[in-house]
């Protein structure tokens, strides 16, 4: 099984906390990787929240290919940060030669254009970079989005932390939201893109579980949006459905749960909003999930949420204090990060619930 975790804090926190959160759950995962998405960035990226940051792992040639493309489109680099790595012998890590976190100014032609146009440009650029770097695995482009950084690597999470110097707390590399997962895809081939969290246009998803409607989801999603590609993991379907429901259709987050685990028909019939719920079940039936799973998601406005399958076959728990909320597959992870919290206020969401946390750390529980 996977173990997933997320931290949302009023203060900027260092990724070492995410490592601690996941490390204590290591008996539940297989220590085969570490991946995280940081959003609402602090430290060196804090001044550039409105500008896109590229997160990429690549070879020497990969850097050149990517920079040529970005230059050709007209992106202008303003910040570049590469983690200082500890390439010590004996570390269990299959590292790529370069890790690049670069923040860019938009091309001049786009500066006066609206947010939507810029967002489409960022997606198109990421897809183009990904395609260009795919031959010979010259590089992996994980995200290209404002105020967001993605890191993914194969190996032992502890050693990955050591390699990237993530155990040493500093205030240069921080964020108010961090989502993390410690396992490579074990169902299929080990592919860097297959590790959660997955990101698309400000939406991030990580999941513990399986999606037995993978084929149905995939066949439907691949025609819905140009950004719905890859499908290296059945969990990517969770992300694309979130993106489609919330961004493309413009529906409130609470309807995500109605799409992925619709209510039984007899319960829908008893509802006042049965017209909408039935129509959702009909028109989005190929986006329904089946199988055991728990999802943690992150929206562009920093809202963090969790929900799970309709039979509650995978665990999740939410703990919090005044300054921080932590979502975790296992309680031991929360105990590690928030040992002094009032554990009686921990939340164990049920199979019909979505729990969402906004920027004020207000926790909302929506019954489906």
């Amino acid at each position, binding site marked *: 099984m996977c173990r997933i975790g997320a931290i949302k804090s009023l203060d900027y926190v260092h990724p070492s906390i995410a490592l601690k959160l996941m490390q204590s759950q290591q008996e539940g995962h297989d220590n085969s990787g570490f991946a995280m998405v940081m959003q609402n960035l602090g430290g060196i990226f804090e001044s550039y929240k409105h500008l896109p940051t590229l997160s990429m792992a690549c070879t020497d040639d990969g850097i050149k290919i990517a920079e040529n493309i970005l230059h050709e489109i007209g992106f202008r680099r303003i910040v570049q940060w590469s983690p200082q790595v500890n390439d010590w012998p004996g570390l269990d890590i299959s590292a790529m030669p370069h890790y690049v976190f670069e923040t860019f100014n938009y091309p001049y032609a786009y500066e006066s254009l609206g947010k939507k146009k810029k967002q489409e440009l960022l997606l198109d650029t990421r897809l183009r970079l990904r395609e260009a770097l795919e031959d010979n695995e010259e590089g992996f482009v994980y995200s290209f989005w404002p105020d967001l950084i993605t890191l993914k690597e194969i190996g032992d999470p502890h050693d990955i932390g050591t390699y990237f110097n993530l155990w040493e707390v500093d205030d240069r590399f921080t964020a108010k939201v961090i989502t993390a997962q410690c396992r490579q895809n074990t169902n299929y081939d080990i592919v860097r893109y297959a590790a959660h969290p997955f990101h698309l246009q400000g939406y991030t998803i990580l999941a513990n579980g399986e999606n037995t409607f993978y084929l149905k989801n995939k066949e*439907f999603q691949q025609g819905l949006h140009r950004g719905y590609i890859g499908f290296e993991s059945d969990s990517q379907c969770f992300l694309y459905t979130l993106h489609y429901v919330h961004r493309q259709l413009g529906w409130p987050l609470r309807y995500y749960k109605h799409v992925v685990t619709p209510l039984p028909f007899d319960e829908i019939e008893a509802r006042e909003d049965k017209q*909408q719920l039935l129509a959702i079940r009909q028109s*989005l039936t190929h986006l329904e999930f*089946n199988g055991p799973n728990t999802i943690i998601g992150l929206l562009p406005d920093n809202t963090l949420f969790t929900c799970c399958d309709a039979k509650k076959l995978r665990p999740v728990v939410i703990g919090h204090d005044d300054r921080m909320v932590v979502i975790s597959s296992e309680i031991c992870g929360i105990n590690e990060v928030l040992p002094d919290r009032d554990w009686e206020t921990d939340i164990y969401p049920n199979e019909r619930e979505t729990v969402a946390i906004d920027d004020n750390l207000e926790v909302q529980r929506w019954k489906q």
Partner: protein
Amino acid sequence: METIKVNNTTVNDLPWKIIYDANRCTMCGSCVATCSFKAIKMKVERRRMVFSEGDFPEPKAQFSAVPVISQVDSVRDYCRGCGMCEKVCPNDAIRPERNPDTRHPIITRCLGGGSIKRGGRKNLEGGKRTLDSIRVGRISQMTDPSLDAQRHTFDLLAPFGRILPPGKLPFSPNQNNELVSNDTTPPVNWIYPVIIGDMSIGALSWRMWEAIAMATAYLNEECGLPVRMSSGEGGVPRRLLRSKYLKYMILQIASGHFGWNRIVTSMADMIEDPAGILIKIGQGAKPGDGGLLQAGKVAEHIQAIRGVPKTDLLSPPNHQGLYSIEESVQKMFLSMSAAFKFRVPVAIKVAASSTSVSVFNNLVRDPYNIVGGFFLDGIDGGTGAAHEVSLDHTGHPIASKLRDCYLAAVSQGRQGQIPLWAAGGLGKTGDLAADAFKMICLGANGVFSGKLILQMAGCVGNDMGRCNACNTGLCPVGITTQESQLVHRLDPEKAAQNIVNYFLAMDQEFKKLMAPIGNSSLPVGRSDALISTDRGIAERLEIQHVC
């Protein structure tokens, strides 16, 4: 000694031979009275027995007249192998036996000068079916646990009606972050994934049709299974049209429009909408051919329901006045939808064909979102009457064509917008749940079944030439006849009970198939759940080949 007359029809020319044991026969006459085909008769045989009484051979002859049962040597009144004689014989003295040396297909044409007609299904290629080489092979284990068929809840429902693409749903969020509707959406009914039909009152006896209607109502009202029955082309009794049970009926309109006079004139008195309208363009058992009800079956009550005199009732092979698919969408669908004020979904039924995907594409791309279901009927479907050459030699198997249509929808991102319903020999081996489940995994939303329903009620016909006499009006079990004496052989309540029980068993079996793949709603299009031991079938249907 008689001269051999080789062109005379004799019983060894016929498809079935009566095996009769005079020693066991009590001459009760039950078999002769029972045989609706008049294929056996009583007669007196002259017997000569030679015997000798003394120590030395002194042969004497004794003549006697013995009453016996004898097979009729006629190509009209011939034995169909239905076995009713065997069923009623108290002494096991008589039974039909298949005659592998029959010359029936040849001499019938030679003597009659006309095409052979019969009922039933295709009687060729009786070997292994496509669905029998497919298994549900994706079993949940370990991290993805199987469900418990007894404990968990399952949603066993399928849509009937046009489904909008998500981007066209007329919803927007209000101030409370709730989706509100700004417009209407096409009507959709969620029903059980097995529809009964579509067999007309006329093709069936009134008792059989009533038994199905009773079973349908019982399944809905008492068992909680929202099963729907299609009327077939031939109308509906007025009493039913005016009752609350109309909501369980799908009204069919075919090229003869039989029965629609009554339906239209009953509209003002309807207290419920029907479950749907099914426009029949074609039928899998006799593609390209219209319905056929021979005059012998057009009894008085059939004349009344259909509004016709006693004559052969031939539905034209196509709807007159329809020029193209586009026109059918505009004219028929709109007029049928308008008739019920757009509250009732309207679907189309066609015979599976090499061109099915083109037809489906035309319908799924229609910009008016009218067509509410694509019913695809394969070659193994049954019929009450058809020319044998059509039954045996025209048509298209259902599995690959259903799959083609689903994949055509997938390639356009339109899967689910027009629900796919498949039929044509499903449940032929008795396991409808398994067949239906496999078809659903291949992309069907649901299936429909006719012949099997009759077999539940007592039909003894099969695909190896047994009985198949639905066209004659002489159905020996009272199912496809309007002869009062024969109809009364069928106990409608017992037939209804059998249908209900079969559906209850099937419902359990659906759950036993959904549980191991870990799904609580129907796995439409989950071809990854299927495997096949046949490489050709696996490749054609795009499922995993295993060995």
